[in-house]
């Protein structure tokens, strides 16, 4: 077990090197030169050179790359080029907002999706099943952009059920006031695909022999579905959950922008627009790391839900 974790962590290294190389290539080598941007309105070549020197982008690529590696190893990405804010502080301040949307979203979504999937899987082939599936399909066919525009205007502004935009300081204020509509919109988009997916997982399990055994034992249908089938569907569900998890960090950028939520996703767009490499690099590295750790966590969780899984 421990050996497994150590080896998996060790495997992160080559991937991380690849991530570093790719992101360095995409942004530093073929990406823009932020010096002109930071130079202000009237800047002569000398000033540009000064700025490039300050930023370290006048160094040869291999030196810059080496610095990048050192930054990754020390987890110290310095400060944003455009705001001078320490990258660590960017994470410390933006992450909570993203999580405040992301965590309720994933929790509510998973619970609702599993419940609905269980009920429709149980009555599979029936009219209810079909109706729910078609509704889900329609719901997921509408662009998130449309949901945002329409919900913000109608639900928040016209009906006044939610604040139109904004973000507060308190956890409860954010969670129950500002995050509600964003979470609702995110749910509208992500619930349907998950219901469909989980339904498939459940149906797969429902065809297994042990379900027949459970029925032959005279167990109630509730017990068959909620204990036997659900527990066995946990592996694909956990996989799906874990795949989604890192995406929550930056994936909600559209919602964050429209609702002025100071999250990581909004920061990503902003930093790309500003060619703010320290921030881009840090976000990439952290999200990549989160993705890999989430994969590892998923594997470890398999072990917890399925005794057959051997971590080798």
């Amino acid at each position, binding site marked *: 077990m421990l050996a497994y974790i150590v080896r998996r962590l060790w495997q992160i290294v080559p991937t991380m090197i690849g991530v570093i190389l790719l992101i360095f290539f*995409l*942004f530093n080598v073929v990406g823009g030169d932020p010096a002109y941007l930071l130079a202000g309105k009237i800047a002569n070549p000398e000033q540009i050179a000064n700025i490039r020197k300050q930023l370290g982008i006048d160094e040869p690529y291999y030196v810059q790359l080496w610095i990048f590696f050192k930054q990754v190893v020390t987890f110290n990405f310095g400060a944003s080029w455009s705001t001078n804010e320490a990258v660590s502080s960017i994470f410390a301040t933006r992450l909570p907002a993203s999580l405040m949307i992301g965590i309720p979203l994933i929790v509510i979504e998973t619970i609702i999706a599993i419940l609905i999937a269980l009920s429709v899987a149980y009555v599979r082939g029936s009219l209810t099943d079909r109706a729910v599936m078609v509704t889900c399909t329609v719901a997921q066919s509408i662009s998130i952009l449309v949901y945002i525009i329409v919900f913000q205007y109608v639900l928040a502004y016209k009906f006044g059920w939610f604040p139109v935009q904004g973000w507060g300081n308190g956890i409860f204020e954010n969670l129950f006031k500002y995050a509600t509509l964003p979470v609702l919109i995110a749910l509208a988009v992500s619930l349907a695909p998950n219901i469909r997916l989980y339904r498939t997982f459940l149906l797969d399990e429902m065809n297994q022999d042990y379900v027949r055994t459970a029925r032959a034992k005279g167990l109630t249908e509730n017990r068959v579905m909620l204990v036997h089938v659900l527990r066995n569907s946990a592996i694909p569900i956990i996989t799906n959950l874990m795949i989604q998890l890192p995406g929550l960090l930056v*994936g909600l*950028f*559209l919602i964050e922008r429209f609702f002025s939520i100071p999250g990581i996703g909004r920061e990503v767009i902003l930093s*790309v627009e500003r060619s703010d490499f320290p921030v*881009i690099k840090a*976000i990439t590295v952290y999200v990549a790391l989160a993705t890999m750790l989430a994969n590892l966590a998923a594997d470890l969780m398999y072990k917890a839900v399925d005794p057959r899984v051997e971590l080798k």
Partner: protein
Amino acid sequence: MNTAVMNPSIGIERSPGLWSLAWKRLMADKIAVFSVIVVILFVLLALASFFGIVAKGWNNETAVNYAPPTWFKDSHKPSADLSGKQPTTSGPALDTGLAKPEFVNDRDPLRDTINELKGQLGQSTGSGAVDEIKIVDPLADVIAELKKKLGRKGDEIGSGETVKKLDSLPFGADKWGRDVLDKVIKGTETSLLVGFAAAIIATLIGTVLGAFAGYFGGKIDDALNWFYSIFSSIPYILLVLAIAAVLNKKGVFTVVLILGLTGWSNIFRVVRAEYLKHKGRDYVRAANAIGASNMRRMFVHIFPNISHVVLVQLSIYVVLFIKSEVILSYLGFGVGVDTVSWGSMLNEAQNELILGYWWQLGAATLFMAVLVTAFSLFTDSLRDALDPKLK
């Protein structure tokens, strides 16, 4: 239950393969039939648009700005009286000072030429005499007249006819007065093209890499998996923005490339898993036993057996990419202005809902929702048809 019963009376006739059986199953499903029809209609519409049979003039400004849909013509009260009736030179409270004293540019190298040309065009001042010194247009009335003539793109000067712009259109008009119905049809063409082309690219990359990784395993698998985990670890949006910045060009093809190059990781995973599973199957062993080469085993034997997975994934991609195009448009990496897509329409219409001009948003959403729904239902049915154990 194996229901295929051998019937000796068939004679020598090609019997149905798994594909045609799957097709039969598909056609037995009412929802599938319906969605197939819808998808086909959309494809036909896109083709018709491609060949210029419909929506050829989507770029023509046939109606007044924000002309409402015909059905809502009466009920619609725009929140502003600006639609098309705005005086041509605006500046609400400010005067641009049009009919002000003329300006003599004695430095102009083109002065004589221009005067001459003006004479030819009959753009002279009221007196009829061409004043050698006054090279400036006698502005106000000439401009007003020319504007009338030039109201529509493509009208030749001097045709003299003022084209009457329509007050309403079946689906309304956009801010330039272009027909939303034409636009949304043209958008169908673009969005379908983007969806299919990007899906094919992503599928191709993912399938080939996945096949090699899954089939050969070992070092090749390690290398490809490494590549895959790099791509899947970098936040999707950053990858898109970076690749978009690298490609640095606007157009449908760029959109296709961005989506195709960033989207292959899903299918890689799926195909790799399938190849891993299939390479140990007896029929592949049997192929090995009869001396089939690796390539033959990979693509002649295994591929047809996992092609349903690829097909289903492909159609999932189509839907995904049609939706992603909207986000790309939002980020400014959508298609260029020489065409229109649902994504570009939705982004254009972002603010129009609040202004009361809901039709462009509505039309694009409606078309997209109908196609995507039909396509998704089709995908589901396809999956069921190809994989009967899931039923």
